């Protein structure tokens, strides 16, 4: 046995540690300023309050479940008060350390994963045992069913798979007394390593019969109980695995409470096996995009996340400060301008997949940090980029869904039937102004920058009872009308193309339609997924557009774009004709995982501070 870790003497204080706030307050009292101390105490108090609430919740849940499951109450200490439970576990650990046992072993050699184990031994006959084979598995105990003091059944989970462990005193290298003592201290939630032989139970369930059984890490808290242990025990977790494009229903999850799921993602992942598939899907989506662009000879680059100027988009940025340089910095809101500078520098095809930051509210589709992919491709225009978009997205859907262009999505809520979204290329295209005129029976004045057009669109909004909160600029009015008449029709992937110049300051004017730009947005399920254009590369026009922004700001638009002088100078060295493109990866992941809330696809979403 390993000698006790040197630091354990302080950690393994004989009595359970006193309330941490008291300890810290004492310890810090000497050095901290009064305010800092207060703050510290407040945080502590909040934390304790939160824990208390959590524990109460867990307690209630446990009580309810215990009422259902008519198990012997003493079977697993689970009728216990959660605080008491935690204290008992801490005492047990302290005792172990005092005995000189390291309760957290350094290493356990696993010979195969649970899924490999299932593949290899699933074909055994009922009751067949391979006693001369030795296998080491590890994972988390999610179910414990003692059957007397000499036989304990466990469900061991790992990597999204599950196997039964049949711990039998007669096969263990512990004595009978040792066996019973040891297993009474193995709790639901513990991470264990077992070494034993494979076999199937008489009922035909694939199991492992351990000779040795080691607890590798301890779960000190009472795990929320599975609603129906029997149902979960029946089928293997992955018998009918969820795949992208299928619907999901978090209402059926073992752990349902959204706050807990998002704040304690580790619990969510432990208890709701589908959740791990969401994040695997997210990883696959990003890997697919990378592979797709790499095959087109794109170069992946990294541009700064902290800038002197936050350019390339319309959004309120986060502000921070570099101490030593005494410099104010903004978190980027888009990588666009830097990526175009690299194209000027001669990297003809570049892309960046990365975080953007916007200092805005948090809701079902917005998180302060989110992930995008932007690419820029010299000598291409927006028509080419539309073709690439179709190939990329349809190819991705087909690969992830294993062969279909169609996905199911609960667009109208989890209690309504899901809709079907069809990614079969080519995608529908709607010319924005033409489409709007047709759908709404309008005849919009050609000079969109003029007062006449503004008045006409105001009247149109009034007529159709479409609200546009002030300022009622032409761009905003148009946007509302497009939202009402066009976007609503875009359930299957649809390109809305040729936006007016007044809406698109970084896009190039249309080669044949005055007043419009060569731009498209891709809508799926009525939401914008991509935004792309033939890039504006005339530095004179670009400066004029920035100047207009400045005018707008002076006349009250507090979010007009700042002139980025470095970027404008770069354009003066010559940006080749270039097609540029951006995609919201979180939104795409939401579609492919039937998620209605962006928090479902972020491992650690931003949450409001708890009261």
């Amino acid at each position, binding site marked *: 046995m390993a000698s006790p870790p*040197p630091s354990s003497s302080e*950690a393994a204080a004989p009595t359970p540690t006193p309330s941490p706030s008291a300890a810290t307050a004492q310890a810090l009292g000497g*050095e*901290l300023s009064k305010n800092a101390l207060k703050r510290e105490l407040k945080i502590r108090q909040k934390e304790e309050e939160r824990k208390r609430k959590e524990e109460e919740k867990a307690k209630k849940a446990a009580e309810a479940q215990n009422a259902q499951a008519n198990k012997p109450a003493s079977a697993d200490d689970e009728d216990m008060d959660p605080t008491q439970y935690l204290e008992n576990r801490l005492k047990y650990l302290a005792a172990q350390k005092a005995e000189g046992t390291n309760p*957290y072993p*350094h290493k356990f050699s696993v010979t195969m994963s649970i899924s490999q184990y299932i593949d290899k031994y699933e074909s055994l006959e009922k009751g067949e045992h391979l006693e001369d084979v030795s296998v080491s598995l*590890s994972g988390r105990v999610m179910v414990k069913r003692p059957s007397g003091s000499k036989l304990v059944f466990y469900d061991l989970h790992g990597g999204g798979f599950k196997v039964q462990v049949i711990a039998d005193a007669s096969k263990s290298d512990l004595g009978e007394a040792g066996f019973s003592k040891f297993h009474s201290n193995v709790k639901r939630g513990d991470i264990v390593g077992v070494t034993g032989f494979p076999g199937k139970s008489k009922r035909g369930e694939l199991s492992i019969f351990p000779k040795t059984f080691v607890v*590798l890490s*301890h*779960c*000190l808290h009472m795990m929320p109980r599975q609603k129906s242990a029997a149902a979960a025990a029946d089928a293997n977790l992955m018998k009918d695995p969820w795949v992208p494009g299928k619907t999901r229903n978090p209402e059926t999850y073992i752990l349902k409470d959204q706050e807990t799921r998002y704040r*304690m993602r580790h619990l969510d*992942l*432990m208890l709701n096996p589908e959740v791990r598939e969401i994040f695997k899907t997210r990883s696959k989506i990003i*890997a697919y995009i990378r592979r797709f662009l790499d095959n087109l000879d794109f*170069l*992946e*680059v990294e541009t700064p996340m*902290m800038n*002197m100027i936050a350019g390339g988009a*319309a959004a309120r*940025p986060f*502000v921070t400060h*570099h101490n*030593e340089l005494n410099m104010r910095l903004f978190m980027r*809101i888009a990588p*666009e301008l830097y990526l175009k500078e690299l194209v*000027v520098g001669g990297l*003809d095809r570049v892309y960046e997949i990365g975080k953007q930051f916007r*200092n*805005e509210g948090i809701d079902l589709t917005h998180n302060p940090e989110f992930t995008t992919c932007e690419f820029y491709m010299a*000598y*291409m*225009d927006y028509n*080419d980029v539309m*073709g690439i978009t179709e190939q990329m997205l349809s190819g991705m859907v087909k690969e992830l869904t294993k062969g279909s262009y169609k996905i199911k999505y609960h667009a109208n809520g989890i209690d309504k039937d899901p809709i079907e979204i069809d990614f079969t290329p080519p995608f529908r295209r709607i010319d924005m102004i033409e489409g709007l005129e047709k759908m709404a029976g309008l005849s919009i004045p050609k000079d969109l920058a*003029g007062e006449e057009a503004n008045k006409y669109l105001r009247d149109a909004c009034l007529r159709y009872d479409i609200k546009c909160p002030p300022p009622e600029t032409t761009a905003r009015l148009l946007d509302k009308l497009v939202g009402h008449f066009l976007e609503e029709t875009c359930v299957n992937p649809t390109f809305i193309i040729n936006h007016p110049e*007044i809406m*698109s*300051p970084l896009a190039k*004017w249309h*080669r044949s339609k005055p007043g419009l730009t060569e731009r498209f947005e891709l809508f799926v399920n009525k939401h914008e*997924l991509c935004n792309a254009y033939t890039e504006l590369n005339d530095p004179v*026009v670009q400066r004029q*557009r920035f100047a*207009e922004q400045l005018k707008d*700001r002076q006349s009250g638009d507090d*979010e*007009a*774009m*700042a002139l980025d002088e470095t970027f404008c*100078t*770069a354009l003066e060295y*010559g*940006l080749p*004709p270039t097609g540029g493109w*951006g995609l*919201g990866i979180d939104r795409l992941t939401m579609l492919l995982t039937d998620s209605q809330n962006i928090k479902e696809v972020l*491992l*650690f979403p931003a949450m409001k501070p708890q009261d």
Partner: protein
Amino acid sequence: MEALKLWNLTSQPLKRHLLHSTTSITSYAFRRTPRTLLLRSSSSSSSTASSSAPDIDKPTGAASRAAGRNRRAPASPTTSTSDREAVRAIRLKKVEELRSKGLDPYAYGWEKTHSANQLQDIYRDLGNGEEANGENDHVSIAGRIVARRAFGKLAFLTLRDDSGTIQLYCDKERLIDDQFEQLKAHVDIGDILGARGSIKRTEKGELSVCVLSFAILTKSLLPLPDKYHGLTDIDKRYRQRYVDMIANPEVADVFRKRAKVVSEIRRTMDSLGYIEVETPVLQGAAGGAEARPFITHHNSLGRDLYLRIATELHLKRMLVGGFEKVYEIGRIFRNEGISTRHNPEFTTIEMYEAYSDYQSMMNLAEEIVTQCALAVLGKLTLDYQGVEICLERPWRRETMHNLVKEVSGIDFSELGDDLEVAKKVTLSTLGNNLDAKDKASIEACQSVGHLLNEVFEVVVEPKLIQPTFVLDYPIEISPLAKPHRRSIGLTERFELFICGRELGNAFSELTDPIDQRGRLEDQVRQHEKKRAEAASRNADKKEGTENEDDLYEVTLDDDFLTALEYGMPPASGMGLGIDRIVMLLTNSPSIRDVIAFPVLKVQQ
């Protein structure tokens, strides 16, 4: 591959005869589009942004004066403002002339059939003076004009694209219409051109596209810096990276290699079954390392947030959640000084694997770095700033104690726990070789572990030129590492050194939540103590900001500690500095050479 078909996907042929009234745009009224989660929204950023927008492109007064004294280098980047303005004015006039002739100085696309390099490759065997004029030899290329020589009825242009360069052979007789006149009148060095024609190797052996027709795709307004007189202004090279890349194509190679390194690391991790994840940049508590964090404020939440200084704590929470092999490649932020080795934002990979220990991470580090070297260099020996480095495995593995003993002669394992004695021995042994700063650092050490580490940093680190794993760090300086299974007072931790620089840091992860809480609380206490001392020193000095380093706040990540209480499997983890790996493999002396847009001091 479906995707491969796209290689030849090109834009519609250039329509040169479009008229634009767009230069007379006067009434743009851009408003932000409705708030979207996405990207590239069409307009405007914050008002706060612009108010600070410094005109960083403006040459400094000093530069203008220098150019004024040295007027004989008009095409260099130090061209004075007036020269630049003169060139710009002339070229803007050309833009107008092109438009008046119905030509578009800013084209919409170009159908390219080949890259310069592909042509050099295909026609490698074409003899001097020979032409290839078959149907397949009619090619179309595009790129930037970087050199230009014109004689009467003949002009030679050098065109550079992403892949390399090729000559454009422009013969008045062969060019359609009056294009030769247009070439002479309107094409400048720096313009982006598309050209079609057949292939010819000149008598002098230069492979050329014998141009039939061409189009100016983008008219450049500013003169390129002269490659030979060079972009010597280092500061400007970093500030205007695109100019640097145009003038010095090898600069772009560093970024190509960087992409290769990152891609190779990903390939290695994926092939080992690791899953890539993304954890938050903005955090309520900045944990996982000891460094001054950047602070920002979220308006609608009404709370301060930290920019992450490591990805460690969130990735470990993934292990608690049941992922067994995870990694993240991402940006880390530290509010520290800038130098040739430090940029406030930099890129790391952190990886965590359940049921493994730090021994297996050493193998993984060797695997990753050697794979990257093979991908970028094709071999395992390399030159870094004049020193030959050999990456052949296995790399040296030695404990910190032994290395310190080897270099300094001090055997810390015999020194015992008495800090004062240890300091005396250290100072008397090393005394003559230490400068005042090192001595002060040694005096300030709070424990024998800190002292050992200090001695290691001063005397051993610079000597670790060939790849070396330094093992078994003192527990006092390793708050997230598991206690060593055999040696009391040490942890199962290693750092990887190459060229005297730390490239990686790894441990058997501490999984005991009680031990972990104790150690983090200790860390906070120690930091608060330093902070209080610094604050009082500063108060004494009144205006001193010298010790500001210790003035930031360190918070405990309670969510992480709670997660550990649910049980994390035994695991090991490692972080590698990607910028430093790229520096090593591209023989770059400064981190600024491997970051496309490094942070620089504000220009006066």
